[in-house]
């Protein structure tokens, strides 16, 4: 008999393949969107949202698989937090078709540049955006600021806020939930922790705002 199947590697390569197929599907959706058939905007947007969530979830799986194997290291380079957040906003807008307004808060004391892994951080933030899109009433706010020795990215919505059990839960291990947000938060937290500068590590914190809605905060050292 041949060597036993390495299920982990097999799963990883299947995820890879499915992810690429979804990539092509997304491009086709893009072409459909450009044809601008009247009355299809909402349908196209929700198809995009579904695709984007699947792609992002698979990407997270792959990244977590690598993190677990201990061979994922962030690729640190200097990026402008303002530009970065603009990309996140564009990606978010693409998923709502105007149903929910995405606001980019004017940078108050955000640094001109910061050293971080742009793609990992975008995956982590997009995760929060997906959650926010599912729970927001009418708007989502994105912001970047300097908080002590950390760069802080925030995603805030005007929905019902995080349930108490989510606020209480530890993010250090994946939590299986019906909505799937447990894995996403674990992923974001893993990405934050993979960022370190001197002795400081990144972190994620979850809060409910005093007025209304959930606030996701990502700190990068």
């Amino acid at each position, binding site marked *: 008999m041949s060597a036993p199947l390495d299920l982990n590697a097999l799963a990883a390569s299947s995820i890879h393949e499915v992810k690429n197929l*979804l990539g092509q599907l997304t491009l*086709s959706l893009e072409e459909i969107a450009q044809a601008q058939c009247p009355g299809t905007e909402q349908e196209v947007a929700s198809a995009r949202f579904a695709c984007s969530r699947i792609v992002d979830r698979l990407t997270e799986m*792959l990244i977590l698989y690598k993190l677990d194997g201990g061979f994922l290291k962030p690729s*640190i380079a200097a990026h*402008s937090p303002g530009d970065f957040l603009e990309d996140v906003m*564009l990606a978010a807008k693409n998923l709502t078709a105007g149903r929910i307004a995405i606001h980019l808060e004017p940078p108050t004391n955000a640094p*001109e*540049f910061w050293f971080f892994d742009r*793609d990992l951080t975008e995956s982590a933030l997009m995760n929060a955006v997906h959650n926010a899109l599912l729970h927001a009433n009418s708007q989502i706010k994105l912001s970047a600021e300097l908080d002590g020795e950390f760069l802080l990215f925030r995603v805030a919505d005007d929905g019902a806020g995080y349930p108490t059990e989510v606020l209480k839960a530890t993010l250090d291990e994946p939590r299986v939930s019906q909505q799937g947000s447990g894995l996403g938060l674990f992923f974001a937290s893993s990405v934050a922790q993979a960022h370190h500068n001197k002795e400081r590590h990144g972190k994620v914190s979850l809060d409910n705002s005093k007025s209304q809605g959930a606030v996701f905060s990502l700190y990068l050292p």
Partner: protein
Amino acid sequence: MEINFAEKRVLIIDDHPGMRSSMRAILGGFGVVLIEMSGTANDGIRRLQAKTFDIIICDYFLGDSSDGQQLLEQLRRNNLISLSTVFIMVTAERVYEKVVSAVELAPDDYLIKPFSGEVLRSRLERIMSKKLAFATIYSLIEDGKLAEATQVCKELTKHQNKYTIDILRLLAELYVTQGKFDEAQDVYQQVVALRAVPWARMGLATMFHYKNRHHEAEELLEEVIDEAPEYMAAYDLLSKVCESQEKNDRAQQVLERAVAASPLIAHRQKEMGQLAMRNGDMEAAEKAFESVVTRGKTSFFRSADDYANLSRVQMERGKHKEALSTLRDVRTSFNGSPEAEFTAAVMESLIHTKSGDTEASAKALENALTIQKTNQIPADENLSLDLAKACFAHGKDEEAKDLLQKLVRNNHDSVALIEKAKQIFVDAGKGDEGKSLIEGNVKEIIQLNNQGVMKAKEGDLDGSVQLLTEAAEKMPDNLQIILNAAQALLVHIDQRGWNEDYMASAQRYLDTARIKSAVHPKLLSVSKLATEVTKKYGVAA
């Protein structure tokens, strides 16, 4: 920034037809109309040679023969795209993120598929704003006004903005190009202090290497490789550092690791072949050169030299039939260009001698000498040595001596070359004659050099200039001579007053020296002198 996309020329390079048309649709969505598409790297290169494009969007995976990063490096090294051309890499994998953080020549940006038209448009606009901010520096660099470009960069680093790190990187690279290694080191250190990003540490290690601080370079490179094992250039440099310390086996091992990780990179395989040959590992050398030639066949950038290397090592291993077949290939591959013909003829002459076919060997030698006489063949050291060998084999002693003498006079301080030349005399049974001829020439040049320098010291600046510039005209490839000539001219200007012609000659010698070796220790001090003298007379460099 508002950009009129309708007037931008865009080239899409992707081996996947479906992806090409999707990309065209996305670009069309925000008004791009001037679009061309290529399915292979070579087709892309041909289009870029024929026409100027504003934007290149290239997939990282280009099928089996090449990848987008290799293509980008070839385009930049061969000046097929200008600094203001936008190059965006597109990839389906996160793998490229690792690659891009560890390359010397990075694209302007990269995007991971899938992405929306909005994202692509926003990235393009951002890159173009950045190119606009850098426009002055780019045009100064392209005009060769490096000192002024450096000045502008320095100004820009005074106020922090989102381009600060990019400007620092460019500034460091400018310093390196001008041979100002101390200044470059400072800049790299400044970046490392902010964050130890791989390219800055790599830059620092390179400066240590240039300044012969091998231990520091080695330590730093070990760290870089440990943390970023995908950083291929770090292996290349570590291998060189090992060689500088005469740890040749270790140098080969280091390079072997890099070759195993990315066997497609021709320049590394070439380096590997040469190193293995020096180490006497002919099997590894043949394997490496073989790979260079095989891959080069489909590449736009290939050289007759690669075939010469392969046939040389095949001959050494007694594979005469294979060696001759390699030379037939060089003729077809280059459509019988004089350079290819010359390469083939020189090597054929040696191979036929080895296999005992004196007549064929003599014919090949005649052929080589005729081509050399009627065409300007650039003097490749190894090929010249081989030609001298062939001349001796056929009793053309005068030609052989002449060739070797010329080589020695142009490289009188290269120990390795002198040894090789002496060995050729020994093999021809003229060891003593060779020894005295070579040593006589070396001695003569050293004396000439010393006389020139002495005259300057004694205050006879005119005599020093005359002696050394005459020597430089006779031995235009001798680095030490031309640098001393440049120095004599500069000292003359410094002490006797501004002289336009002298400055022009000095700059010409410096340019030649830079092309031959950017790291010659004397090049630094003479370059510095040129800057000081220019400043003294308030002439714009």
